[in-house]
C-alpha cells in the first residue's frame, strides 16, 4: 500500500465530499486542534469543498505558536551565555521573542544548531565536551518521549554537558481550558493524529462525555481529514458524541505504552504558560527530581529581560479560535512570512502562515 498517494486520490475524495454534502443537515462548527491538520486543510482547499453547513475553525495545536514570549526570551537569553550551544528544531529559529529571534542572535555569533532529532543534540554534546548543549524542548506529547529518551541516554553515558529547556505542552488540559472558557462553541473536534499516536484516543473521552462534543482522531492526508469530517457529521446527525479513530493506521485507543512510560519516568506535569491563554494547570512538563540536573533552567542563570507582546498581533485570539488571521490588521501587511510579527505567521503549522501561503478565500 502506498501511504501517501493513496490518501490523495481525487476519485476517492470526490465520493467522500459528496457523501458529506448529502449527510450534513445541521449547521455545525468543527475545530481542528492540530496545526498539521490546519496546513492540510489549507494546502488542499478543504474548506472550499465542504457544504455551507460546516464551519471550520483552527485550534491551538501548533507547539511553536503557543510558546509564550517569555519562554522564547529564555531560550534567546540562554544563547547569549558563553560556551552554550543551543540545539533546536529548525522551526524555532525564526520565531520572534520580545527583542530578537534565534536566527538573529545566530547571525550575531550565538552558537545555534538546527537538529532533526534529540539524538543529534546528544551527539553535539558528546563532540563538544568543553561546552554545554541546551536542547530546546518544545513540542507536545509527540516529541516529549524522544526528549525523555535523550535524557535517559545522557544519564547512561554520564554526559554532564547536556541540558533541556523543557517547554513541553500537553494537549488534553488545554482543550479543557479552551472549552471551559466558553469563548468558542464547538460541535465537533478533529483530534490530533500524532499526539494521539502517543497518548491514544482515551484521553479525549472527557470531551465527548463532559461537553457533548463529537471527536474523531484524524491523520494528515486530505482523505484522512475528509473522512474525519464525514464521521463527525455522521455522529452529529445521529445525535451522538463519542470518540472515534479515523487514523487507524497510526493510532490505537491505548496509545504507545512504551513512549508514555519514558515520558512518565523523566517528566511530571506542571502548570504551563500558553500564548493567548495564560497559565493552564497541569498542561506542561517539568523534569522529575531525579533528572533535575539536566534542567537548563536550574543549571544556568537565565536573564531574559522584560517581556513584550508585539503591538496589534492577535495570535492569541487566533490560537483560541475566536478570530481568524484575516481579522488581524497586521496580516499580509506588517506581518508576512518574510517579516513575521507573531509566531502563527512563522511556524509552518501556524494558521496565519497557512492563510497567507495558500491564500484562503482566494477566488481566482
Amino acid at each position, binding site marked *: 500500500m*502506498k*501511504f*501517501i*498517494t493513496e490518501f*490523495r*486520490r*481525487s476519485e476517492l*475524495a*470526490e465520493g467522500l*465530499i459528496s457523501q458529506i454534502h448529502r449527510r450534513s443537515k445541521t449547521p455545525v462548527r468543527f475545530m481542528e486542534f492540530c496545526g498539521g491538520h490546519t496546513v492540510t486543510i*489549507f*494546502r*488542499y*482547499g*478543504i*474548506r*472550499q*469543498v465542504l457544504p455551507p453547513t460546516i464551519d471550520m475553525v483552527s485550534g491551538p495545536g501548533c507547539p511553536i505558536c503557543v510558546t509564550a514570549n517569555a519562554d522564547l526570551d529564555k531560550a534567546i537569553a540562554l544563547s547569549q551565555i558563553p560556551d552554550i550551544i543551543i540545539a533546536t528544531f529548525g522551526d524555532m529559529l*525564526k520565531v520572534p521573542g520580545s527583542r530578537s529571534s534565534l536566527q538573529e542572535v545566530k547571525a550575531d555569533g550565538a552558537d545555534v544548531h538546527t*537538529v*532533526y532529532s534529540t539524538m*543529534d543534540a546528544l*551527539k553535539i554534546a558528546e563532540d563538544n565536551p568543553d561546552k554545554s548543549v541546551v536542547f530546546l524542548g518544545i513540542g507536545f506529547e509527540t516529541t516529549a518521549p524522544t526528549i525523555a529518551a535523550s535524557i535517559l541516554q545522557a544519564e547512561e553515558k554520564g554526559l554532564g554537558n547536556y541540558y533541556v529547556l523543557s517547554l513541553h505542552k500537553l494537549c488534553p488540559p488545554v482543550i479543557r481550558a479552551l472549552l471551559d472558557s466558553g469563548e468558542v462553541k464547538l460541535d465537533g473536534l478533529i483530534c490530533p493524529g500524532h499526539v494521539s499516536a502517543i497518548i491514544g484516543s482515551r484521553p479525549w473521552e472527557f470531551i465527548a462525555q463532559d461537553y457533548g462534543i463529537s471527536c474523531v482522531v484524524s491523520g*494528515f492526508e*486530505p482523505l484522512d481529514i*475528509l473522512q474525519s469530517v464525514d464521521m463527525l457529521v455522521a455522529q452529529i446527525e445521529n445525535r451522538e458524541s463519542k470518540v472515534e479513530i479515523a487514523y487507524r493506521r497510526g493510532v490505537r485507543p491505548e496509545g504507545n505504552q512504551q513512549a508514555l512510560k519514558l515520558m512518565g519516568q523523566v517528566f511530571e506535569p506542571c502548570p504551563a504558560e500558553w500564548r493567548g491563554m495564560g497559565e493552564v494547570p497541569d498542561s506542561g512538563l517539568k523534569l522529575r527530581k531525579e533528572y533535575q540536573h539536566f534542567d537548563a533552567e536550574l543549571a544556568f542563570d537565565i536573564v531574559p529581560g522584560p517581556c513584550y507582546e508585539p503591538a496589534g498581533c492577535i495570535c492569541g485570539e487566533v490560537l483560541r479560535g475566536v478570530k481568524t488571521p484575516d481579522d488581524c490588521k497586521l496580516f499580509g501587511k506588517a506581518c508576512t*512570512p*518574510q517579516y513575521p510579527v507573531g509566531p502563527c505567521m512563522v511556524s*509552518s503549522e501556524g494558521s496565519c502562515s497557512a492563510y*497567507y*501561503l*495558500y*491564500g484562503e478565500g*482566494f477566488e*481566482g
Partner: protein
Amino acid sequence: MEKVLKDKILLAHGSGGKLAHELVEGSFLKALSNPFLAKLDDSAVIDFSGRLAFTTDSYVVSPIFFPGGDIGKLAVFGTVNDLAMAGARPLYLSLSFIIEEGLAQSELNQVVNSIQQAAREAAVEVVTGDTKVVHRGSADKLFINTAGVGIIPEGVDVSGGNARPGDKVILSGAIGDHGIAVLSQREGLSFSTQLESDCAPLGGLVAEMLAASPNIHCLRDPTRGGLATSLNELAKQSKVSIRIEEEKIPVREEVLAACEMLGFDPLYVANEGKLVAIVPAGDAEKVLKVMRANRYGKSAAIIGEVKAEHPGRVVMKTCLGASRIVDMLVGDLLPRIC
C-alpha cells in the same frame, strides 16, 4: 607521512608557484585538456558569430559527493542548463576553484574527472580556469564558480517575460529528486533512500524542443526554490498568472515520503535536471512529444496553462478540486543544495 601530505591540498597549491603548476598540469589539464586550455594563456581567445548567451554561477553544495552526482558534475550541468534556458547551444565554460586547505587531492581529482565526463556529455569545453586555496574554515572543502557561453540559434526568442495567456506549461519530469538526494546525505540527517539526484545536461533536450517549435516562449530550470519559485518568477516577469493542476505534476513516492517526514512541499524542493517550458497552445503537443522521446524528458507532462487575470499569481487546483495560491519560497528550505 609524505604520502599523507601529498594527498592534501596545501595553501602553497594556490601560491602560483611550483605546487600550483603541478596542480594545474597534473589535475586540471590532464583531465580537461583542449586547444584553448592547453595554451595556458591568461584568456581563452575564441571566434564567435551570432547572438551570445552568457551566464555565471557558483556551487557550494554540501556534501560535495551525493547520490547521483558531485559538485563538479553539478557545476557543469548547472551552467550548461542556464545557457540552455536562454535557448542557447552551450559551448564554452570557465571554472574557478576555491579550495579549502586540507582537501584530499584524490577528492579533487575525483571531482575533476567528473567534470571531464560531464563536459563531454554536455558537449562543452572548459576553456579557462583558476584555482585559489584558502585557510581551513574559510571555505567548506570546495567551491566552484563557473561562467558559460553559448550561441542562440536564429529565430529563437526565449525569455521569462514571454509567457502569453493561453500558453501551456510543460514540466520535463518528476520534481524534488535532487534536493532530497542531497539532503539524505547530510550529517545528522542521514535517512536511507534509493533516490539519486536528477543532475543532467538539458542542452540536447532544449535543442530538440526548439527544432520542434522555435516559438517556445519561456524555459526555466527549477533549481533552488523548486518548481513553485520558477513558476512565480515567470508569472511575475510576464505579468500573467499560471494555473497548474496538482495531479498532473509528477513526483516520486520516495520524494513525497521524505517531504512528509521533513515537513517540505515538493514544489519547493530543488531539481538539477528538469525544465519548465511555456509554449503556445498550438505547439504544446508536438513539443511534449519530442520531450518524451528524449531520455531527460521521458515523463514530461502538461501541468497547466497561462491566464491573463491576477498577474503575478500562481494558482494550483488541488486533488480535491479546490484551488490555492502557490507562493514563492520564503527563507531557506534546504541549505546549500547546489
